[in-house]
């Protein structure tokens, strides 16, 4: 099978239209960012708290909000997380002015108190506690009468019971009644009885809780920014060295172009910028760079082989020659990220979306942005250089517009 065999599309003909579209997208992104009151930084960068809770019964975000409001946490919102049948809720709290306040604990206690969680009586919440708590609590009372108290044998015996309880819990989601405790496999009736008497069945469990202090958020932000800037700079220098300055400029413009548009679209979809999104942005930069370098490589090769051809023709030919490969590679990568987007689950969703956007934009930019920039840069260079020469030594009357362009071409054909 073969697609795009021997195409002769004049990509450069539409370069100004494309540059117009790019600008429109970038500006639209900026407008969206402005309309949202700036980029939405996730707690990785802005600091704050984010808690995902799973409830035994369908939760009511409004009710949770009204329970948490009086705590003066700086509550930003309570919203459903993942699919409705999972009974999961995401709670967000703004960054605290000072380090050290334990927001997770405050939220937990308040909800627990309001919704019938365990009181301070020392009972174990079977929906919240981990295997270690079950193991040590059971080992201390030894309901199974395993030889002697707290011997290694007892510790091991109860450790496996702790694991069994937690494994059963993650299998059924949450414990809903004492009958659920009875159904835990591989646990003796005595241990189950002790557990039933000394535990409560809490209304929810914590799936994840992230709390980033203001100081750390700031650090992460500056460090991520520096890492990205320096690595982009390194790419520019490398391409400059390997090809020519105009290629370096084209590549960097393409990268910035891709990043800006992707960030703009993320803002449009109201997604948060987190460290994982930064990783995705880096991936798309790498991807776009790969695409761009492939096209450049062909341009360089064609410049060597067809010295007479003007640069625009060489570039057009090069893009056409690599078009099949570009579509194929992009299409394949696209398949993977689309699969991640639709099937990867909530955690991977924004990450995958960033890549989906990034691959489309990145492919477009290596054809319609990175290469035209080289042509445009070349034209500007070509116009400027002879002009400087004219100023230095009043040359014999200019021989028409063709001469300087040819001069520029010869220069760039050097490598």
């Amino acid at each position, binding site marked *: 099978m073969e697609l795009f065999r021997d195409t002769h599309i004049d990509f450069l003909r539409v370069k100004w239209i494309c540059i117009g579209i790019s600008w429109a997208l970038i500006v639209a992104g900026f407008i969206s960012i402005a309309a949202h009151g700036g980029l939405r930084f996730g707690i990785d960068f802005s600091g704050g708290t984010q808690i995902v809770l799973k409830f035994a019964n369908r939760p009511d975000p409004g009710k949770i909000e009204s329970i948490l409001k009086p705590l003066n946490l700086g509550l930003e919102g309570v919203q459903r997380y993942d699919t409705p049948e999972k009974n999961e809720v995401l709670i967000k709290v703004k960054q605290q002015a000072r380090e*050290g306040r334990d927001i*997770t604990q405050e939220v937990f206690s308040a909800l627990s108190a309001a919704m019938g969680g365990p009181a301070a009586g020392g009972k174990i919440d079977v929906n919240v506690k981990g295997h270690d708590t079950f193991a040590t609590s059971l080992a201390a009372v030894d309901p199974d009468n395993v030889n002697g108290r707290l011997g290694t044998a007892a510790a091991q015996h109860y450790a496996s019971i702790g694991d069994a309880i937690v494994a059963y819990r*993650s299998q059924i989601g949450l414990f809903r009644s004492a009958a659920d405790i009875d159904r835990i496999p591989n646990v003796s009736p005595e241990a189950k009885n002790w557990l039933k008497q000394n535990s409560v069945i809490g209304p929810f469990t914590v799936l994840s809780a992230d709390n980033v*202090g203001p100081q750390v958020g700031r650090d992460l932000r500056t*460090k991520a920014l520096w890492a990205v800037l320096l690595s982009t700079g390194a790419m520019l220098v*490398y391409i400059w060295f390997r090809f020519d300055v105009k290629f370096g400029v084209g590549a960097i413009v393409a990268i910035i172009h891709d990043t800006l548009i992707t960030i703009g679209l993320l803002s449009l979809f109201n997604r948060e910028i987190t460290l994982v999104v930064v990783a995705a942005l880096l991936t798309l930069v*790498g991807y776009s760079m790969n695409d761009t370098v492939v096209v450049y490589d062909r341009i360089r090769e064609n410049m060597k082989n067809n010295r007479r051809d003007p640069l625009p023709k060489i570039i057009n030919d090069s893009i056409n020659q690599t078009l099949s490969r570009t579509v194929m590679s992009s299409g394949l*990568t696209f398949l993977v990220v689309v699969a*991640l987007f639709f099937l990867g689950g909530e955690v991977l969703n924004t990450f995958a979306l960033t890549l989906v956007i990034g691959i489309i934009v990145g492919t477009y930019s290596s054809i319609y942005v990175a290469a035209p920039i080289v042509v445009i840069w070349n034209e500007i260079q070509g116009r400027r250089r002879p002009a400087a020469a004219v100023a230095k030594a009043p040359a014999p009357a200019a021989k028409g517009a063709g001469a300087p362009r040819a001069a520029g071409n010869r220069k760039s054909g050097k490598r």
Partner: protein
Amino acid sequence: MSHQKVWTRVALILVVLVASVAAYVANGVSRVKTDVTGETTPGVKDYLKNGIRLGLDLKGGIHLVLQVQTEDAFKIEADEAIAHLNEQNREQTLKLGAVTRTGPATFTAVVNADTDTDKLQDAVKRFLPAWQYSRQGTTWAFALSAPARKNIGEEAVQQAVETIRNRIDQFGVSEPVIAREGENRIVVQLPGVDDPRRVKDIIKSTAFLELKLVVAGPSSDRAALLAPTGGQVPPDAEIVEGNSTDQDPTSPKVFYLLQKVAAVTGRDIKNARPSQDQNNRPAVSFSLKAEGATKFDKVTGANIGKQLAIVLDNRIQSAPRIDGRISDSGIITGSFTPERANDLALILRSGALPAGLVYLEERTVGPSLGLDSIKKGVTAALLGALLVFVTMVVYYRRSGFNAVLALILNAIILLGVLAQFGATLTLPGIAGFILTIGMAVDSNVLIFERIREELREGKTPKTAIDNGFSKAFLTIVDTHVTTVVSALFLFQFGTGPVKGFAVTLIVGLAASMFTAVYVSKTIFMLEYGSRERIESVSI
């Protein structure tokens, strides 16, 4: 394409393949061994599953960044200095006025008319070398010198790391990370821990234990307590709070007057373990080191019939009567759950923290969320890979199948190398993985498109393959090196997740260079190399 050369190539590829698989499996075996506590014997599946360490974002667990409050350590230093001066004062050698702490690392001493300033200077030089002072009239202001601050801060962080490590070790977490970061931060990563609250409490608990003689009390109000001493707290005593009933933390508050100097402290503890009191309630019994035991023996022997307060983090747990001489052990009773008694014993065993800790960053991923995201991610990635493979085979036919082999080898090498380095796979790592595979696919596509071009130009199949590889090679080097250069910078300057991305990418691209160019070519050589003339290429 000589025949012998092909087999050398195949041998090298097999060596790399075997080494990668071996590295991965070996890592899996060693990790499963450390993980498994139960009686079930792990199978091949467990080893394969555990070949690579998964990050907390995937596996579930706790990630904490703590800041050591080094000022606490300064305070202790200042208090010791003040205590030293006061002692000299009591012995009438210095005759100082009031010595007061004015900040975490500063204090002032009032010099009276009869203070011998020469002697004071001498004492400071000899006993308080870390302190600098300036005179302002009759007041001398002392401040901890900068190098001393640095040393003490350094020590405090170091000791905090040690203490936390002790506590975590007793908790039995497999593969914990406890590392110092920057000047006064500590990063703690506990994979698989599913009870964040308890672990946090254990890590953060200062657990400063003191046993102090009761001077007076208990009394429900401060004034009544101080009535015998004329409403003043005696200089060698202090007021500490407790509850009227040991067993109930909600019982009314009471106050005790205690001797300021502790009979023994947590530092003297040799061992502690959970136990039960006479009424079968959870308690913690402890034993003392030789030196502490001698001290304790003396104090209890001299004070039979008096009460001894057990003070934990400046709160009275209980105040039992001393019935007889006790030398090397004791028991702490209070309102404990079995769990709390267990934890307290653990904390006492591990020693007190030199300074308070503040949580700067705290991330908990519940095991079910982690598990869920892995399952979905793996399914999606496998489906994506399958789509890629099918498309490659449909589009490039036999050559496409070669590329698929090369891609699988690429993934195996990447996993093997990551396992060998003990790297952790996180979500950004997966991003790096995707980019790597994307570029590896692209390398093959580049080669195949070149071969097709050559064929279109009418070259013989053999020349087309050779030219295709050699022409695409330069492009592949260019794309790979460009990306690696930027990844190196990300590795150098990035933190956590960005670094993880960079590592996967660098390793992956090195593997991709090898598989896309060397392995692919070898497969082509195997297929077409033996024949003198190739009629056609399946591409």
